[in-house]
């Protein structure tokens, strides 16, 4: 009798267990490594967290040592020129001007990374716009932030994947996206992309103010700086002059600090830095941090980056920017390793420069010269030159010679930072001829409007995008 009772009890329990609601059982687990869209767009703090996350990705470990983040795009431009010599090491193929095929890492990284950032910017713009909780003033400013980001990355993209603006405005350029999509858009034109960039950056300058969460973030000055570079490429000289001036504020004395130039280029609190990527020892891209990790021979690094003897000889002995040392006392001057530089000090918390005041001063100077205001241009140029070299002598150049002087000054000022030599050669439709003690010389020369000034469209994009024809790379 007791046995039967027990058996019934066991069977009853079994039925209870079987019938217990399994939907609840399955609904209980929730992800702990992410937050949902409403959390992000329901407060200014949420959106700022999103902005912070995007800024963090400026200096990530995206694909590999030479394809880490924005710094990798800049350094690839640097080694394509004549002033810097890269050993057969990371960026060696960029140095050979030979890293542009559809299946190469440079090509797919630059494409995917810029579009990744553009997609984040679109999510920011559209998420803020759709929010019914945020204040209107906040919405305007936060959307402006998204426009600045989108404009900046479309400018990097169009420079990397199309000939320059003045070459052919109808040349096929990367597709335009203004919202999230899981299907590909077709190619645009250079003109369409520049129209979008100018529109975005204009809205950004309008919507942003001078405040920001930190110097690695974008504010009105930074947006102006980006716009100045865009106008410089487009040849809109009044626009470039105004934007450049607005970017650094117009007071050269307040934004130049010669001593800071020799401090290792690793601290964005330097007054000359308008915008830089911040790093800390636990938020670092570690050994992916070019230029620092390639140029600094005093610590554990790739020790891969050298200075062309011809470039080094442009500097006077008293120029604060002449930060060159002999690699070894015994190397002949023809050896590519002859000069190295101590401009960049590598640590895991070394910040990366993006826009500095001296670049803006020189854009303004160039814009003035282009508008035949040679005297004003000369004043501005000399202010910078005198700051850098106490023995600087005001030159008497005018016209094209003055322009050349400004361009050389840009190289001397910005070497190994943002690829200035490549940027100028590309926009001015000039070639780059290798001289001096280069490791690879004529084979890596670039002619004017050389196709090697831009990359082919990645094969993976062509394969997955129905609107981009296989033949897109035929004339690239």
């Amino acid at each position, binding site marked *: 009798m007791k046995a039967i009772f027990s058996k019934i009890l066991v069977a009853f329990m079994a039925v209870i267990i079987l019938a217990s609601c399994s939907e609840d059982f399955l609904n209980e687990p929730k992800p702990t490594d992410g937050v949902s869209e409403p959390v992000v767009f329901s407060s200014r703090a949420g959106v700022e967290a999103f902005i*912070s996350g995007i800024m963090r990705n400026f200096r990530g470990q995206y694909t590999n040592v030479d394809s880490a983040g924005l710094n990798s795009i800049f350094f690839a431009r640097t080694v394509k020129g004549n002033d810097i010599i890269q050993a057969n090491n990371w960026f060696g193929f960029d140095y050979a001007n030979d890293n542009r095929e559809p299946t190469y890492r440079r090509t797919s990284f630059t494409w995917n990374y810029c579009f990744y950032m553009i997609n984040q910017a679109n999510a920011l713009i559209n998420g803020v716009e759709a929010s019914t909780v945020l204040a209107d003033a906040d919405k305007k400013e936060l959307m402006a932030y998204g426009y600045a980001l989108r404009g900046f990355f479309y400018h990097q993209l169009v420079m990397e994947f199309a000939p320059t603006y003045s070459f052919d405005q109808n040349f096929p350029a990367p597709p335009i996206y203004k919202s999230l999509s899981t299907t590909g858009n077709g190619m645009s034109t250079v003109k369409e992309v520049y129209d979008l960039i100018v529109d975005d950056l204009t809205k950004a300058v309008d919507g942003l103010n001078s405040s920001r969460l930190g110097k690695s973030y974008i504010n009105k000055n930074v947006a102006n700086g980006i716009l100045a570079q865009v106008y410089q490429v487009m040849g809109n000289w009044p626009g470039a002059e105004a934007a450049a001036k607005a970017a650094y504020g117009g007071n050269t004395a307040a934004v130049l600090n010669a001593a800071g130039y020799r401090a290792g280029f690793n601290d964005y609190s330097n007054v000359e830095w308008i915008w830089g990527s911040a790093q800390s020892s636990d938020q670092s891209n570690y050994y992916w941090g070019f230029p620092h990790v390639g140029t600094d021979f005093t610590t554990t690094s790739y020790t891969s980056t050298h200075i062309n003897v011809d470039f080094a000889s442009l500097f006077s002995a008293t120029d604060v920017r002449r930060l060159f040392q002999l690699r070894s006392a015994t190397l002949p001057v023809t050896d590519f390793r002859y000069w190295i530089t101590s401009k960049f000090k590598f640590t895991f918390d070394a910040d990366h420069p993006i826009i500095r005041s001296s670049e803006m001063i020189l854009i303004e100077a160039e814009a003035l010269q282009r508008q035949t205001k040679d005297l004003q241009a000369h004043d501005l140029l000399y202010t910078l030159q005198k700051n850098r070299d106490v023995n600087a002598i005001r030159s008497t150049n005018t016209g094209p010679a003055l322009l050349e002087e400004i361009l050389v000054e840009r190289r001397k000022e910005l070497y190994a930072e943002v690829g200035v030599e490549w940027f100028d050669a590309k926009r001015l439709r000039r070639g780059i001829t290798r001289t001096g003690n280069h490791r690879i010389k004529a084979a890596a020369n670039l002619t004017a409007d050389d196709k090697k000034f831009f990359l082919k469209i990645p094969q993976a994009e062509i394969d997955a995008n129905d609107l981009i024809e296989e033949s897109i790379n035929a004339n690239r």
Partner: protein
Amino acid sequence: MRLKFKWIFTLLIALSMQFSFAQEKTVSGIVSDQSGPVPGVNVVVKGTNRSAQTDFDGKYAVRASSGEVLMFSFIGMNDVSVTVGASSSVNVKLQSTAKSLEEVVVVAYGKQKAKSIVGSVVTVGKEVLEKQQATSVLTALQGSVAGVNIISAGGQPGENPVIRIRGTGSINASSEPLIILDGAPFSGNLNSISSDQIESMSVLKDASSTALYGSRGSNGVIVITTKRGKLGTAPKVTFSTLVGFAGNAVKLHDLVGSDKYMEYTWEGIRNANQYVANQPAATAGLNASNSLVSSLGYNPYTTAVPVNADGKLVSSEKKWETNWADLMLNDSAIRSEHSFAVSGGSDNTSYAFSTNYLSQEGNVVTSNFDRVTTRLSIDSKVNDWLTAGITSFYSTSSQNFPTQSGNSFQSAVQWIYTIPSIYPLYQRNGNGDLIVDGNGNNIFDYGANSAQLINGNRPQLNNENAYGSLFNYKIKNKRDNFTANAYLQVTLAKDLLFKTNLAYDKYLFDSYNYASNEVGYASSVDGRVTQNRDITTSTNLINSLSYTKSFGDHNFGANLIQEAYKFEIDALGAQGEGFLPGVYVLDGSTTPSSVSGSTTEERISSYLGRLSYNYKEKYFLEGSYRKDGSSRFNSDVRWGDFFAVAGSWLLSEENFLKDNNVINFLKLKGSYGELGNNRLTSYFPYLQLFSTGWNELDNTGVVLGAAVDPNITWEKTASSNVGLEFGLFNNRIFGTVDYYSKESVDLIYNKPLPGSTGNTGITTNVGSIKNYGWEFSLSTRNVSTANFLWTTGLNFSFDNNEITELTQKSFTNGNKRWEVGRSLYEFYMQEWAGVDPATGYGMWYKDVLATDGTPTGERVTTKAYAEATRYYVDKSSLPDVVGGFTNFFKYKNLDLNVLFNFSFGAYVYDSTYASLMEGFESSGRAAHQDLATRWQQPGDITDVPLFLASNNDFNSQSTRFLFKNDYIRLKALNLGYSLPQSLIERAKLSKMRLFLQADNLLTFQSHKGIDPEQDFGGATNSRSYNQRVVSFGVNLEF
């Protein structure tokens, strides 16, 4: 007739023996097998010297008292032990050790007679496991089960092999089989289980056998059952110990020594000077001599310019020559294993307890694995309707795991194949003399002394010394695994059984990583300690009702099961930097640089049923159905339905075969089913989230996560199987043939998206792949006499893979290109066209294009690698056939088992060899002896291009480095000698066996220098080498 004669002979021996009768009663009976009485069977009263042998009619008589245990043994049959009860008559039926059809096989949620199995199930029993030193038990399946392809790559003990049952069925979800341990899914690490504790492993291959694991059964299921005690058996104690040595199973690539190396490097520079910079030959040679040392950075020779302008070594006198392989690989690694077990049972309670200790050193000098496991199981018949049982298991292990594969600088094998012997182990000054520290000790040379122009900067793997890093870095894994598995079984009514089973598993994984504060990659932050502790908890509850009923010749069976599975990973990690020398714990850090932690949960809720029917045990039918809900999918699509139907026909039971002299057994079987897979890498693949952790300095940061398909759901695989089983000549030959076809439906696939959308892929259900093939197995009893037994087993399978649907025309994935109609494993790369005899440059093929840009079908050679066309080269990393071949010999007390496994038809891309054949393009990289046949002057016909210290693509990816990777391996050899019963009885032992055990003793391979077991994609990855282990041991039983 001969057999009968032999029996009579053994009978005579038996009769001539002296029986010593004690005062106990006489126990007698008949010993028989399937075909009738067996004469000559040994009957021993355990723990005494009383014994007997059966006579011509299988009869025996022996003195024994109740409670004593009778042991029956006969060659070729399984031993049987029976406890003497009240009755003085004990009849015994012996089972042949060859495959027995009445044998019970562990299948999904239960056991079945081998005869009634309708699907494809292969069981590997303890007798196979006992003959191998399987540190990870799964390696014992290799070569023993057809259709199972196993790769155990590398020489780090304690690592689990990669297993594919019937091919790779998934791309983005896991392709690993589901592991069921004592009835519940096992989520710990399988290396925590020692093989001596396992009773059997059943490999369930087709849909009908795995359907009850429907949701996760599409990649096959391995059901592991541990040893348990048996009711009514006397206590049995076994002890075994084993000690051995291990070294490399195969030889390394042949490297050139320092002298050759210097001359070769000179030649590379000379050629660059002469052919690229167009210097006159004499100048080119002189310049090469002068730049040789600066290009290498080091000079081990006593002369400043070690190679003269003619390319000859001036003097071979040198200050060092480093043999990195000798330093870093352990050719006398010690392996020792000891185990102790007790089992037995009374009339209503049985128990088994075992403990095992293993210590094994690995292929790389500091690597090792230490493990202690303990298992206890108890089963009890509480009363006539209730049975309960529990197994508890604890395992703890630690593993020293220096980096030994991959391309991080300290990776041991990569180092051996990158740094030539001209680089020193210890720091040298500019003159090549040793530099010592303040205590007079040598200092490891990290090759990053930029102050010193000679002997200071190594061009390759700068700022590292992989040998030094074995001591200066520490990588340790610790694992603790606790499992408790309990059941309660109630007989509710006649034929109706209820069983509830709860399995709880807790697994703690602690990974610890220290990088030196003084040298190496973290020296710039004064060292770094990273420690992660993950606690994985899984709980699995199964309630089942089973019902069996027979009406005359109609036999029915039904199971109704409910299952709930809960899984949680609780991860915690910390990292700190800034350590004093000799401080290795996080407490000592000056900068605690990061902390991390997360909890991830997964749940599955399931309902399942199985119906089976047979008529006269001749026609079998089975159907099963399972419904699963998984928390990995959105609530609308989380429930999946899985099913299978199967049938078999025992032709040998039909009248036309019943009395056939040749065919004793013949079974035809077939099954079809649809199974699932939810094992994606993401636990919430359907949720679009902003992921946390992207902080910008002090500001909290989130970013938009990858694009998701909110409706992603179960991957399903439609699987069919047709098979034949046969037994010939009194079952002396037993074999099976199976054909299978598995096609995935709704494959979980990372569909490529255009990168311009901001995402390069989206994980969704698209595409389809198919695996199909044939499996064969054959076991024979070649000779079976009283003193000599010889059995053979052979199994092999032909497995094929085909992509049947893709979302785009093709998808390039490394050196493969996926296209409908091709396999996932077909190589697609540039085709090497040899060396141009005129220039010594390498050549490849390229297509001739018509004016419209399409290939004309013609092809020509090119010296420009960028122009070379990529082709399907008609070679695959998937083998045509894999299998195993085993032979067992027993002569009197000697036994020998040899197991070979083999793989034919696969190709491997040996990038290590490619790197060794670089031909001095970059300076200071190790070189292969095969370079000797390089092109030296116009007209030379060779396959090795000239040495050229200038940009070239000679060793870029091409068929030049694609090699056939056939191999046969003597995987396990076990030679044993059992001491005669008469001898050991005095020591109160029932068994004592001495044995020699050798694993991976011989390897015959078509491509030498690497271990043939690399990976399914046919790629090398600077892996350490599998070990050849030779051990001696002893088993004791009493």
